[in-house]
């Protein structure tokens, strides 16, 4: 854990919060003790980025009103006629489509700073 935080330059507290959410959702599990820490609960190629993202960031809504189940009105526009909302709902389904077809393994293969988290966990 400390390792992941250091290598990715993120506060340990923040990482802690993320990992505990992932644990609640069943993507990782934690072990206590000396050899403890977090591990993936499933093989990395079964874990889809979109599935994890919904748990961490909510229902993939680019703007708060663009969600069907977690709808938050903007306050200054009419939902029924708002073209932006309609467009954003399409955007969001396109986002879901890409992310739901990308596994953790595939993301690791892409490289980049996030990889460190994934790699440390898959290792």
């Amino acid at each position, binding site marked *: 854990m400390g390792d992941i935080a250091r290598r990715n330059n993120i506060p340990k507290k923040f990482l802690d919060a993320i990992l505990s959410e992932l644990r*609640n*959702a069943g*993507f990782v599990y934690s072990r206590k003790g000396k050899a403890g820490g977090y591990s993936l609960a499933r093989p990395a190629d079964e874990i889809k980025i979109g599935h994890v993202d*919904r748990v961490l960031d909510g229902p993939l809504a680019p703007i708060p009103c663009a969600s069907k*189940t*977690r709808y938050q009105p903007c306050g200054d526009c009419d939902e029924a006629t708002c073209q932006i909302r309609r467009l954003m*709902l399409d955007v*969001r389904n396109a*986002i879901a489509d890409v992310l739901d077809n990308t596994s953790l393994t595939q993301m690791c293969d892409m490289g980049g700073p996030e990889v460190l988290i994934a790699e440390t966990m898959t290792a």
Partner: protein
Amino acid sequence: MSTSSGRLSVTIIGGGASGVLLAAHLLRNRDTDIRVTLIERRGEFGQGLAYSASQRDHKVNVPARGMSAFADDPEHFWRWLQQRGYPSSHGSWVFVPRRLYGAYLEHVLREAGKSNPGRLLVMSEEVMAVRESKNGIETLLANGTSVVSHSAVLAVGHETQPARSRGIAVRVGSERDTPLPADAEVMILGSGLSMVDAWLSLADANHRGPITVVSRNGLLPKGHRDVPPLSIDSADVPFGTSLPYFMRWFRDLVDETKKRGGDWRSVVDGLRPYNQRIWQSWSGHTKRQFLRHLRPWWNIHRHRLPPELHERLVAAVASGQVKLVAAEFVGVERAEGQVRAEIRRRGSSTREKLGVARVYDCGGVSVDVLSSSNPVIRDLVAHGRARADALRIGLDVNEHCAVIDHAGKVTEKLLVIGPLTRGRFFEIEAIPDIRVQAATLAARILSHA
């Protein structure tokens, strides 16, 4: 032996709803020259287990508007009903007798054959085995002959033998389901629609004796209401999570929907298009947890009863004639002209024996294929050409419904349609899902033409 000529040929084994829907989809595109051989052992096509029900009160549990043979022509069944002058005060939100739906499927098959002269061959025979051959698949019949085609599709549907206590417990409508004295005490095992069938048959025969319904949770299926499904996008659905996380999301959504004046049914129905994806996104552990702890609860909410039937059943429980018992069924034995059923009530560690005139087994139509009574399934499994899925609720198939053998090898030419693919798809019991599977399978088979 009939051999296949150059043109594309498919043998469909089983002429219940799934077999007929597949045949109809294969023959829909009149440009493709194809030979479809449909083999059914009952002598009647389109009925299968569900739509051969003899009683008028044995109704479908999906409104007519959801029962069209073709997903892209949702009014097809409703139009057929109207042409026959079927009375309905609720428009297409009507629950017809199941045998009438069987007649509709027979009509669909007949039309498919008529508009494709020489392409559809139906045979009333039992299939004993299938073999992979050089030319494709050879289907061996009980009369000693066989049919060769490029591919074959298993549409053999549900297990017909009682899973438990073979020989003593009785299946509703089977030969051993002989008339009972009106005041006899009866036990029914199960909490699903077949249990309701059994109760209905008794009620329609003016049965007055006490009826004890034993199931794991002692629950009754819920009733339908004409409410629209909630509009849900795939981006809203938490795929791939643990079961507790998913259930929290589900319950929250039901609460929010109710707060807005909605109905829980809208949530269950709104999720329907995603059920196969949700199932497939789960880990083996989560699937097992679901089957063990949530399936009965899910089933009573998902597979609902026509409202008037539900009201009758609730009234029968209220009157005391039907008693719901949450218990594990341990076994049954014959004793002095009676049968003695042994159960263990939920939360209790002691077993108790109840003497009744008859036990109806209406439990799980999904049984381990290893104990299948179907000759073709037995043969496939015994020779390692097919295997049970990891959860042992059907046959192991790949994403295209092709059979997977004991070593994990896929036989592309041998496909499966219908409830037997539930290990991979789970939500594949009812017509709205089977017709989509039929369309997908047909497109794939025809793409090889």
